[in-house]
């Protein structure tokens, strides 16, 4: 080895583009309370999401009755001690329906976040690594992104039978391009990093580079993105159900309960009110969690937004 190569090495490193430090560790200083003080958004959002998950899981044990049980003799009762949130046009207990509705919303939100992240990760990786496919994939993604997501989901739902599974697929397809673009941008910026060059020079095979160097760096931005996808998926599900293109009316979802209250909202506003509050609080909690995670995981981004 000559002197020249030794002196150029540090220069190369200095000239290299700034490393996006995407995954600084969150230190658990000062226990849970200290963590909550430093990241209030994560603490509050996380607590609310957890509460909502518990409500969904333990819905049968929280003083609910069968959410689909009809009782024509006690239609549209105002909220009272017997019916905490009142009853709807068919005499069904709204409290029970709202609690069971949490199951649908959370299932849709979490499933879409997971599936869209997985699909987006694969497409983003292929696009970032298989050079010739990049142009084609990105043009298709551009086209998909030009279709407003709600309309894309509506069109897909119009072609399938209403079911929770189909709602999840429809919303996932609408969300894939955004996740793919994020993963692709991370891959493209990492590929230029000296340590990836070094790994390639050392003869590391592509699958290993992806596993060791690329994937760990996509975790942070994708987690943040996934929370936003989850929040928007819950809103889209409610919107689809509200306009009659979502889950079948027999399933108590927040959107369905509001759709049923639509005709009566001027005289019986509570039918719309309770599911609306639950939906808004849940989405707010997930968004808070996302903002908090973004600030904690990526301080540079936090400064910009």
């Amino acid at each position, binding site marked *: 080895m000559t002197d020249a190569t030794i002196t150029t090495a540090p220069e190369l490193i200095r000239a290299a583009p700034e490393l996006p430090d995407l995954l600084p560790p969150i230190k658990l200083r000062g226990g849970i309370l200290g963590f909550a003080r430093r990241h209030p958004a994560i603490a509050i959002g996380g607590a609310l999401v957890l509460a909502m998950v518990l409500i969904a899981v333990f819905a049968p044990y929280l003083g609910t009755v069968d959410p689909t049980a009809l009782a024509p003799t006690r239609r549209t009762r105002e909220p009272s001690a017997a019916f905490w949130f009142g009853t709807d046009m068919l005499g069904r207990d709204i409290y029970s329906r709202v609690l069971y509705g949490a199951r649908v919303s959370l299932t849709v939100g979490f499933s879409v976040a997971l599936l869209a992240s997985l699909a987006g990760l694969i497409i983003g990786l292929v696009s970032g690594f298989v050079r010739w496919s990049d142009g084609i994939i990105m*043009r298709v993604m551009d086209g998909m992104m030009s279709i407003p997501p709600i309309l894309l989901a509506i*069109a897909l739902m119009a072609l399938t039978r209403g079911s929770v599974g189909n709602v999840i697929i429809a919303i996932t397809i609408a969300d894939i391009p955004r996740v793919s673009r994020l993963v692709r941008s991370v891959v493209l910026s990492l590929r230029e990093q000296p340590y990836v060059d070094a790994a390639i020079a050392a003869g590391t095979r592509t699958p290993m580079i992806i596993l060791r160097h690329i994937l760990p760096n996509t975790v942070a931005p994708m987690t943040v993105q996934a929370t936003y996808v989850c929040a928007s998926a819950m809103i889209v599900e409610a919107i689809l159900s509200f306009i009659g293109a979502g889950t079948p009316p027999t399933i108590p979802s927040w959107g369905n309960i509001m759709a049923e209250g639509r005709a009566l909202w001027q005289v019986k506003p509570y039918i719309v009110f309770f599911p609306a509050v639950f939906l808004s609080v849940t989405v707010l909690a997930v968004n808070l969690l996302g903002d908090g995670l973004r600030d904690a995981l990526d301080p540079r981004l936090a400064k910009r937004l």
Partner: protein
Amino acid sequence: MIRRILATIPVMVVVALFVFSLLYIAPGDPAAVIAGDQATPADVERIRQSLGLDRPFLIRFGEWLWHILHGDLGTSIFTNLPVAAMIAQRVEPTLSLMAVTLVIAICVAVPMGVVAAWQADTLIDRAIMAFAVLGFSVPVFVVGYLLAYVFALELDWLPVQGYTQISEGLWPWFENLILPALALGCVYIALIARITRASMLEVLQQDFIRTARAKGVGQTRILFVHALKNAAVPIVTVIGIGVALLIGGAVVTETVFAIPGIGRLTVDAILRRDYPVIQGVVLMFSFLYVLVNLLIDLLYTVLDPRIRY
């Protein structure tokens, strides 16, 4: 410039191809779904033929594209009217709603973002940003019902629902659109306010702001003339991207406020499983969205002369 305009053509072709292939992507047999549960096999076969599902994909796509280029978006299964005519009939309320929302949202959101950036890390900033997070989280129909309940039912200031054509007078038209526009604009305001604040924060740190201050330019002039002009590109970008939110939200807002626009057309089409109408609406709105973003891209050259195409 011309290259940028031509670049929208492949995007539009991809959009058309994607919208067209939804028929094939959708799980299950679309013809059977559209025909409904009481349909006979003959009905299903008729719909399959009218959708062209019995012929090869590429040939069918070519025909379909050719028709679209001639302004023919297909025929409604339910009413047998041309889809293009059905959309044209309903276009005024929807475009009115979107235009009013756009104007109100920009007039509210940009000053909000500017003030938040100016007062960064104070109570005012926190309050504005808290509103922005809330605006993202509360779904458009919830805001709609809330506004209608408070301002129309309780206070009786504005009409509850409905739409008046612009030809019947400017004020009746506008009066009916205030609440829907506010409901629809909520998410949009949150989005624009956030990006305005972020973009302004960056610009306010730069040297020319200090220079302006040093030579005695007033605070308002610094914020809204010197800084905002230089912070405009990201803001305008987000205004363009956010149009997708407006389009999706308009469908819901029109349902809440009983506005007879394209959103209502879509919702009715969903109930009747009238797929050609839905396809036409999706295609038209997507093209509108591509065109809006083309306009925004061209606007960059005006806002920032360094950008050229």
